């Protein structure tokens, strides 16, 4: 029963910042996903926990023991590398036996080793590849062997670095589902690194979002989705990306520059007239109608559909709101979703995110949503799962 605590972890590579003051608290058995673009410090964080990177500052505590200066082979953590890191001169079964033979992860008899390898390869569907060398495997198979080398033995913490990134889309979805169901995974404290927001939302008990070596937000998937800490987090989740518009204060409302899109400022938020604000609307949160519904819970604006792109079940719409502002939306199709159509775009107030105003190219903090009370943590918004199902 092992919890993992990381405090003020810092690592610089020369003048480049690897990670800068990362704090993580991973509960026993929790599945934490670290999400971020490349270069955000995800792998450095993982390798610091494993002891493969000598940190400049900060501590790593595994199961109540300070491991900061402990050699990797004494930490009892298992890691799957993004590069697979399979031993090229060893067969699949020898690769999988490697952690069982070192003597530091527990003592296993020949039979016990065989049984464990057998179990894990059956689970991962690679039991027909045991005698092959890594060079004779496809990338997907290699990735599963790398995962197998982690799962084959009990460890205090599993560290998984993009373990699904090289799989093709279908296999990835299947493995994503399987991964959560693996009994070991649900019992073992796991830190999982990915740049894929869908993986993060689907797998994580909590998600930690990194940006340029810094922790921006750590919370449950629902909270991260509904109440992103800033525009960076909001943009990290969702495909197509969230729409972010600059807006100016116009009396008691915010108006997206150049358009008729007007949003009343909720009573619990104050916005300075000079700075203005940003409005974030996710493409999946919009609804297109022929005319205004006059629903007080929603905000609506006229627009003209410029472009319709079919993405399987959904269509992606580029909607011209006038004044050079284009909103991206997702729709399930229908007679309204045609190019050139004049339509009304409607968005529920709790799904409109308000961010601080900031110069272009910089990120800004979230203030809340466009309805008082639903406020800062996004309570009352429709659940993410429901939205994903609709897509």
């Amino acid at each position, binding site marked *: 029963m092992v919890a993992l605590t990381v405090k003020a972890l810092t690592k610089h590579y020369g003048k480049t910042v690897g990670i800068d003051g990362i704090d993580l608290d991973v509960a026993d058995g929790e599945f934490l996903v670290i999400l971020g673009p490349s270069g955000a410090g995800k792998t450095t964080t993982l390798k610091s926990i494993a002891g493969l990177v000598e940190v400049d500052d900060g501590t790593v505590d595994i199961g109540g023991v300070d491991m900061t200066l402990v050699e990797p082979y004494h*930490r009892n953590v298992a890691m799957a590398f993004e*590069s697979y*890191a399979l*031993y090229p001169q060893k067969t699949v079964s020898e690769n999988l036996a*490697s952690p069982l033979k070192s003597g530091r*992860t527990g003592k296993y008899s020949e039979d016990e080793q065989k049984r464990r390898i057998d179990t894990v390869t059956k689970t991962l569907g690679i039991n027909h590849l045991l005698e092959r060398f890594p060079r004779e495997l496809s990338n997907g198979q290699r990735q599963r062997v790398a995962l197998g080398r982690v799962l084959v033995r009990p460890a205090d913490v599993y560290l998984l670095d993009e373990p699904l990134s090289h799989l093709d889309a279908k296999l990835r979805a299947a493995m994503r589902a399987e991964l959560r169901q693996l009994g070991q995974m649900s019992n073992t404290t796991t830190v999982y690194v990915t740049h894929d927001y869908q993986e993060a939302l689907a797998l994580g008990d909590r998600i930690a979002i990194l940006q340029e070596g810094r922790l921006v937000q750590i919370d449950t998937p629902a909270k991260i989705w509904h109440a992103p800490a800033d525009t960076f987090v909001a943009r990290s989740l969702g495909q197509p990306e969230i729409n972010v518009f600059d807006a100016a204060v116009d009396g008691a409302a915010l108006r997206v520059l150049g358009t008729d899109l007007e949003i009343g400022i909720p009573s619990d938020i104050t916005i300075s007239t000079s700075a203005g604000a940003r409005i974030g609307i996710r493409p999946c949160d919009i609804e297109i109608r022929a005319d205004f519904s006059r629903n007080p819970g929603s905000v609506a604006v006229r627009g003209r559909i410029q472009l319709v792109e079919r993405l399987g079940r959904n269509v992606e719409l580029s909607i011209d709101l006038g004044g050079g502002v284009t909103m991206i939306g997702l729709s399930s199709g229908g007679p309204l979703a045609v190019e050139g159509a004049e339509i009304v775009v409607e968005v529920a107030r709790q799904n409109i995110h308000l961010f601080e105003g900031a110069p272009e190219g910089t990120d800004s903090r979230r203030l809340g949503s466009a309805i008082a009370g639903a406020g800062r943590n996004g309570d009352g918004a429709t659940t993410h799962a429901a939205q994903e199902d609709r897509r």
Partner: protein
Amino acid sequence: MASELMPGQKRFTVGAVAADIVLVVWFVFSLFPILWMFLLALKTPAEQTTTYFKFSPTFENFGTVLSQKGTDLTSVDFKSALLTSLINCGGAVLVSLAIGIPAAYAAGRWKYKGSNDLMFNMLSFRFAPELMVIVPLFVIYNQIGLFDTKLGMVWVLQLVTMPLVVWILRSYFEDLPEDLEQAALLDGYTRKRAFVMVALPLVRPGIAAAALLSFIFAWNNYVFPLILADSNAGTVTVAVTKFLGGGGQAYYNLTAAAAVIAALPPLILALTIQRYLVRGLSFGAVKS
């Protein structure tokens, strides 16, 4: 010739033929001395200064060379010089590998301020002409009793081979993904075990290439054995030249026969580990 032919284009252009002719001429030019050495080695003493290609070949010269006992024709015992060379060069290569492999691993994995300067410094031993250091070395060797000892020769020849081994193997270790050893660490192996179990087997081609090249460099070294050794630790390169007489009569045919014999061990070694060598030289040189 690698460029694709366009329709209607001829395969043999004047330029291509001319290029081939130049290559053949260059090839003959560079191989001619070796051919001459082989021919000369087969000539009788009476014909040793002739330049014609038509003569009745004899293998007698090889026998004469190998039976030299240091008393008859020259002051050299060729067979024992051959053996000494094997011991000296083998010893130098083993010492270079034993120290050079860990050194190359450290140099490839551990980067710090000035690590490149250190490596470059090491290579500069190879830039300096051997003659520059030979006088102080001679004095030192005489003083501490290393003159004309095999230990002394191994010691001085590894100065030639060590930088080579470290430089070649460093690039091999650098090309090896660090993740592999890190995976071994997390599998529960110590750094030393990870090195032996994972890194070492994967640079075997590099070790073969480095060993062969450094063996050839040590084998061909002339200046060090000439000055720092005599009859006890003298090597084959020095022994070959003894047939030129050094004041007495010059036996060109015997010199050639001795040179042919002296060229055999590196050649045999190269052929035996050729399989590794070809893969090795390209594997280490290019980053994938």
